[in-house]
């Protein structure tokens, strides 16, 4: 194991999110559940198709419905895995907010040091800190798709 890792260029070992989480037991369980679910949906669709051919009119609707559910399950699964590779923490809005916060924080500090004034600036600062605290609370719930990793 270590010899193969040593042989690889550093850049290849670098990615923060590896595909390896996909073969962990918990994920294998989910993969299995998905395969069974999709196979089951397709089987149900086929069963409804046979019933429809036998003259059950209602079954025609389900003949088309079950494959749609199967497709939906596959899309759901693919998107879930893709979300794991591109964590929501790195979404553009989040980075932008973080950048704004950094910029503003440094600018505010500079002004405060320069002027040495107290009252109105502090109110602003308190309001801004409250805003940062709210942001922090908000961000706490992000990345919940990682619950499985």
């Amino acid at each position, binding site marked *: 194991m270590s010899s193969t890792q040593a042989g690889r260029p550093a850049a290849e070992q670098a990615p923060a999110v590896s595909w390896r989480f996909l073969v962990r037991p918990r994920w294998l369980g989910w993969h299995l559940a998905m395969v069974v679910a999709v196979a089951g949906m397709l089987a149900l669709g086929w069963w409804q198709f046979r019933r429809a051919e036998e003259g059950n009119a209602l079954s025609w*609707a389900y003949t088309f419905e079950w494959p749609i*559910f199967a497709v939906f399950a596959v899309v759901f699964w693919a*998107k879930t895995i893709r979300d794991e590779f591109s964590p929501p923490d790195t979404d553009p809005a989040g980075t932008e907010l973080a950048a704004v916060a950094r910029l503003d924080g440094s600018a505010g500090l500079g002004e405060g040091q320069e002027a040495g004034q107290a009252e109105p600036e502090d109110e*602003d600062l308190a309001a801004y800190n409250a805003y940062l605290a709210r*942001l922090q609370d908000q961000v706490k*719930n992000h990345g919940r798709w990682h*619950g499985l990793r």
Partner: protein
Amino acid sequence: MDAAVRRYRVMAYITGTVLIVLCFVGIPLQVAAGNDVIVNDVGTLHGILYIIYLVTAYLLARRLRLSIGPTILMLAAGTIPVLTFVVERWVTRKYINPARQGQQAGQAAPTARAG
């Protein structure tokens, strides 16, 4: 996000209502009176509505960044009578309202800094 929430809610209420009619009117009629009309028509209708519900619920779940458990619960709720309404209230209380508050805080901040 408001549009996604609205679409989800509309579909949740419509799908939930149709499913209640199907289960508490249609199936008793079929079993007791041998009348298949409601089960056939409303059953097909619920099937179509549920597909739309799936899409709206899934889009909202992604927007709210729910984990797999709550997402699957939201999606499955459209197939179990009454649960649609319960889950809609639960999602609103637990996820939609906090997300809205976060959004408002994010919008309020720039003016607070400017003033």
